[in-house]
């Protein structure tokens, strides 16, 4: 019974924790401009993150060590540094975007200017990382983040023409857009679904919670059930924007636009629920990205790390996270639009993907670490297909950014 409850809790937190500011903004932007014609990218991204998160969790469970630590040891400092540079910069951008996201959601709830909320949000993130136990932190934010299901509820309450919506699922470039903007947002959506921090957090989290090979079934269930259901939440966000914003000629540029379809369908109650969900989702993601920054740095330099240790026993790990939060505050204090930071962070995520996922694939095939838990043939074949997709997305991202003026 306890095991079943554990699996259910894992699935629920995986669903609630799947959506972050990148998914919220990118799916709403895409829904408002391209309708549901890019949903196939969400499906491709969700399958990819399931594949690599599962691989990463298996590495942690089989070796008892976090993926990045193994990559650093197995591939050497140079490959580790390339991986660290790419993932750490993206992490830092994502930390900034998530803190900005918390502040924007709190502004929507209170009308107090978001810049005033930024230090509060960052302080709260630091406090939770410093004081709250890993499992409580992960479960509470994941479960409260589940309230984002209100997007799906609002979609039903909006009573859309389901046939017309289903008709939009065919991948086509809408008349007012170009193939270049379509491709650019396809890459952004892919980057949002496959953000590198998710796998580093997932594998380091497995070590924090002391997973062993006995927990592999639970890990697999969490990933293979929780993430696809989380992906459905992303589709619901895009569908809400498609139903309410697209016909009005609105292109999403702010978080306030993202919540309008929910208010339209579910009124003030829906608005209250969605704001709680957005705060929980961005707060949870801010915790994960901040921790990921600490994990990657500590695992590369061989510092003592982990929330299972007292802060005094992992001082550099905690100091690194504090510095990351301060950098995030400093960037946001310049007045840069957090939504813009989010949009850039998901595209840069796509650029950095090969440096993150290739090493995971190599390590997951090393019997020295994995013993009998190395990748099977089917997983390797799918992994190779994804490496090609990731490489294409990574190479095309910057030229498309230039050609489309960052999607404008």
């Amino acid at each position, binding site marked *: 019974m306890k095991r079943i409850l554990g699996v259910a809790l894992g699935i629920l937190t995986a669903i609630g924790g799947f959506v972050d500011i990148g998914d919220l903004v990118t799916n709403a932007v895409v829904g408002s401009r391209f309708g549901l014609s890019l949903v196939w990218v969400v499906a491709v991204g969700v399958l990819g993150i399931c594949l690599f998160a599962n691989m990463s969790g298996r590495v942690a469970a089989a070796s008892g060590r976090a993926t990045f630590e193994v990559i650093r040891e197995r591939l050497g400092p140079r490959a580790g*540094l390339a991986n660290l540079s790419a993932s750490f910069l993206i992490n830092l951008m994502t930390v900034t975007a998530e803190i900005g996201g918390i502040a924007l959601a709190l502004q929507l*709830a209170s*009308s107090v200017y978001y810049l005033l909320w930024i230090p509060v949000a960052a302080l709260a993130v630091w406090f939770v990382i410093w004081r709250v136990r890993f499992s409580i932190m992960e479960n509470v934010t994941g479960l409260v983040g589940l309230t984002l299901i209100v997007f799906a509820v609002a979609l039903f309450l909006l009573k859309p023409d389901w046939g017309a919506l289903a008709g939009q699922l065919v991948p086509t470039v809408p008349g007012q857009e170009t193939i270049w903007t379509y491709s650019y947002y396809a890459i952004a959506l892919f980057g949002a679904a496959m953000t590198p921090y998710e796998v580093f957090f997932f594998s380091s989290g497995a070590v924090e919670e002391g997973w062993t090979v006995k927990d592999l079934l639970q890990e697999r269930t969490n990933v293979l059930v929780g993430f696809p259901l989380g992906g459905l939440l992303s589709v619901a966000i895009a569908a809400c924007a498609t139903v309410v914003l697209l016909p009005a000629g609105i292109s999403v540029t702010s978080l*306030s636009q993202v919540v*309008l379809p929910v208010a339209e369908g579910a009124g003030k109650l829906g608005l209250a629920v969605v704001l709680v969900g957005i705060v929980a989702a961005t707060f949870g993601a801010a915790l994960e990205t901040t921790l990921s920054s600490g994990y990657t740095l500590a695992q590369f330099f061989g510092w003592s790390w982990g929330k299972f240790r007292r802060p005094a026993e992992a001082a550099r790990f905690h100091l690194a996270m504090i510095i990351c939060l301060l950098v995030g505050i400093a960037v946001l204090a310049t007045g840069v639009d957090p939504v813009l930071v989010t949009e850039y962070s998901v595209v840069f995520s796509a650029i950095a993907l090969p440096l993150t996922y290739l090493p995971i694939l190599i390590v997951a095939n090393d019997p020295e670490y994995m013993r009998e838990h190395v990748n099977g043939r089917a997983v390797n074949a799918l992994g190779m297909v994804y490496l090609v997709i990731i490489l294409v997305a990574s190479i095309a991202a910057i030229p498309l950014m230039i050609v489309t003026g960052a999607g404008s």
Partner: protein
Amino acid sequence: MRNTPVSAPAAKSRPRLAARLWMLAVTALAVLTACGGGTAESVSTAVKDSSSAVATARIALRQDMDGKLTRAATSTTLDDELKEVQTSRSSVLKLSPATPEDRDTQKQALDVLDQCAAGFATARAALSAGDGGTPSLADGDKALAGAQDALKQLGDKVGSK
């Protein structure tokens, strides 16, 4: 196992070079993505962005009148969208039109964007005045509807060029 990174003196210049290349690439990217087209194209983009902002504000006002949106959310939405209009106005203002025709287009665009800003001012005043105050939310919506019509006309005109 505790790992320490290898540091060879010859390799020290590589990260520095990589950092410079990275900075150069980011700067080039920023410049290239900021580069725009001619007056008509820039005005067209400004009209499109402002139309989106005005349409958003009208939905927010309607939802507020229907009791679906809180005052805090309506106020934040209006602030966000006014910022969008101001950004568009600023980009049109910075244009350097070369022909009399382009100068005329720029002037018309600035007039219409000013009308949008005035519509937002009425809407925000209505929100501050509260229920039963003057101007009312309906007045704000009316002012924004006028701005939306003007934007549509300008958009059609610029688009036909």
